[in-house]
């Protein structure tokens, strides 16, 4: 699925239909529903692959912008209904091309025609569609010429004749009668709108006449985060990532061994237990005085005297005679990773407080910070929750999510570190750091060797170092320092839980 369709439609028409994937693998046809635009997972095999999704999305968007009318199917034969659809397709495309002429170039490659001497109805309809999209194209067939004359006011195709739905319906009836007189067969059951980028036109008819799309509706899943509203269960928004795990006995990686389910964290309900962490005064941003600088606000008097002595004695003077103050370099990007396994139940308030204060301090120093948490229930269910993403503000909803964290399950540290590394390595910047807040050593329900997960975590820290991501640990339990020292080395610190 092409992910750039949503910004594409927003910029073209200022519309934001919800985009759905049609999960049925055989489906190759887009359709519009009251929910939004449904697109198949892949383009049909026989068309230009690169531009098919853009063509389909631009066509459906033209319907959304220019097709407000619903046609009444009463008294319309199936062939006339098909022609109404074809003429309406051509009408919305013509209107769209008037504003965005480049769309014609996008759609035309899909209009391949069969110029046989004995054309069937589908051939003629394709030829008519080709002529209506590209008025400079001339087709000698009398039926196509008639369709063109009904559609445009002028020969050059610069004025649209079918401005009203009634006129369009009338033109379709005339063309449909001609098809009947030509004795051309029309099979309504097998008919598909042509070319393949056009949707099935079900949006043109009232809802009760629409094709029963029950199986599509059930099978369609919204794309991306935008469609996943707050009311949807968090589990459905989780993205699954698999990571290898290091087996210290073999010793080798077990490929795709752990599954990390990444989802936004749930906010706490407003309850008496919820409180804003206490604000602590922060030290002012640190500034340092730089002496003997090539430029600055004031003279560095020592350097100035030396320079004058050098000049007086006929030597070359040192030009670095200024001093200035500078702020310490930016804090870079930090991902705070909270261990929320069951054993942290007592320490969780302290951990929340520490995370909030760290995040605030980092952001006040122009750093970028995210707060994520994890717990695990065996290797297939490492739950990874995002309390605050890198671009989120440290605001009330974020604090509510932080307060919503609950201690549960176990600690599969390696998989969580690998996922955190993956996320932060995608960020730009030179100083990238994962800071783990934990209560002790990792364990999980399906691991019985106490050293297994420690060895895996140590391996994950090394992998991160190879990707220039620094992994450090704040441990709240002094008992665990010894075993974690082997994992984090000098990056391990002890944080007293009563540091308030």
């Amino acid at each position, binding site marked *: 699925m092409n992910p750039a369709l949503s910004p594409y439609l*927003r*910029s073209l028409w*200022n519309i934001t239909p919800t985009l759905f994937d049609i999960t049925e693998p055989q489906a190759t046809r887009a359709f519009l529903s009251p929910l939004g635009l449904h697109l198949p997972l892949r383009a049909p095999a026989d068309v230009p692959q690169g531009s098919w999704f853009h063509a389909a999305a631009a066509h459906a968007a033209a319907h959304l912008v220019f097709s407000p009318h619903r046609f009444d199917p009463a008294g319309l034969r199936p062939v006339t209904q098909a022609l109404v659809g074809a003429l309406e397709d051509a009408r919305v495309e013509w209107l769209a091309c008037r504003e965005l*002429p480049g769309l014609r170039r996008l759609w035309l490659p899909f209009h391949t025609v069969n110029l046989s001497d004995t054309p069937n109805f589908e051939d003629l309809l394709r030829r008519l569609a080709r002529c209506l999209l590209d008025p400079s194209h001339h087709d000698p067939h009398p039926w196509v010429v008639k369709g063109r004359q009904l559609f445009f006011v002028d020969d050059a195709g610069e004025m649209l004749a079918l401005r009203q739905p009634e006129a369009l319906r009338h033109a379709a009836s005339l063309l449909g009668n001609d098809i009947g007189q030509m004795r051309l067969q029309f099979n309504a059951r097998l008919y598909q709108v042509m070319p393949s980028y056009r949707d099935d036109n079900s949006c043109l008819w009232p809802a009760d006449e629409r094709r029963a799309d029950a199986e599509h509706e059930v099978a369609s899943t919204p794309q991306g985060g935008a469609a996943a509203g707050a009311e949807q269960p968090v589990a459905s928004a989780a993205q699954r990532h698999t990571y290898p795990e290091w087996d210290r006995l073999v010793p080798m990686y077990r490929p795709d061994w752990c599954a990390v389910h990444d989802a936004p964290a749930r906010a706490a309900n407003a309850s008496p237990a919820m409180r804003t962490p206490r604000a602590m005064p922060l030290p002012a941003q640190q500034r340092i005085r730089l002496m003997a600088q090539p430029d600055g606000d004031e003279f560095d008097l020592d350097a100035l005297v030396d320079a004058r002595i050098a000049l007086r004695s006929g030597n070359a003077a040192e030009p670095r005679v200024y001093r200035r103050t500078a702020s310490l370099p930016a804090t870079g990007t930090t991902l705070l990773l909270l261990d929320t396994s069951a054993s942290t139940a007592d320490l969780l308030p302290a951990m929340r407080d520490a995370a909030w204060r760290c995040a605030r301090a980092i952001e006040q120093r122009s750093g970028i910070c995210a707060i994520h948490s994890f717990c695990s229930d065996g290797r297939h269910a490492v739950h990874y929750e995002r309390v605050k993403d890198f671009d989120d503000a440290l605001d009330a909803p974020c604090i509510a999510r932080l307060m919503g964290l609950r201690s549960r399950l176990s600690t599969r540290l390696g998989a969580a570190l690998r996922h955190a590394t993956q996320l932060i390595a995608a960020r730009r910047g030179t100083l990238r750091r994962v800071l783990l807040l934990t209560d002790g050593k990792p364990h999980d329900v399906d691991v019985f060797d106490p050293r297994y997960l420690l060895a895996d975590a140590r391996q994950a820290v090394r992998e991160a170092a190879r990707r220039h991501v620094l992994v450090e640990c704040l441990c709240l339990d002094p008992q665990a320092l010894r075993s974690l020292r082997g994992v984090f080395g000098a990056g391990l610190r002890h944080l007293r839980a009563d540091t308030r």
Partner: protein
Amino acid sequence: MGSLMDARPLASEPYYHPAADECALFEAAYAQRLPVLLKGPTGCGKTRFIEHMAWRLKRPLITVACNDDTSAADLTGRWLLDAHGTRWQDGPLTLAARSGAICYLDELVEARADTTVVMHPLTDTRRMLPLDKHNELVHAHPDFLLVASYNPGGHKELKASTRQRFCALAFGYPATEIEVAIVSHEAGLDMEMAARLVALGVRTRRLQGHGLDEGASTRMLVHAGRLIREGVPPIAACRIAVAAPLSDDAEVSAALLATVDASF
């Protein structure tokens, strides 16, 4: 710094198309010597406006582009060391205050905090600039005016104590017809092509907040127009002047390129 000494009124009129009554308002503010803050997104015409007004008022214009390393000494002046000893060198703000020029601090919000404080005495009724390092109190020339610009969409904000000293003129992207006229004039294009460029600009601005911090500015559209005037095909011109500079994000870039393709 030597070139600042020669600051003279501009010789020819810089092109500016008023969007409303901003020229008259600025003239009124100048008549009362009230400092003016120009707010607006990048490339919407703030700098061109002040050039135009300096020409209208026949005052020299001294422009300082502020960045996060701009210190108070960069504006007021500093001691230099030369072969004969130390020598005081006026900064651009001091020079403008002495000579009666318009001092234009571009992107004031980027400057360090001490920078914004140093100009406070110049912006109220005192109209003076204390130079503590030079042990001097500079009284501003009667014609001197301080003008600053800033882009409110950025991540920094002006302090209340600074912003309350200014009258503020808010700039936005011009209305479509005016923007078409501007692009047509600046790029030397016919109105139809200029209208197509402006329509593309409006489309990119819809992505503001949805992957883009800001959409294509008028300046960007003028750049694209000048490339077209140079004989570059419109799609290629808009790709290099609009789509490519706007975003590095793969998804947004793809959408922008597809929008450019659809527009011509």
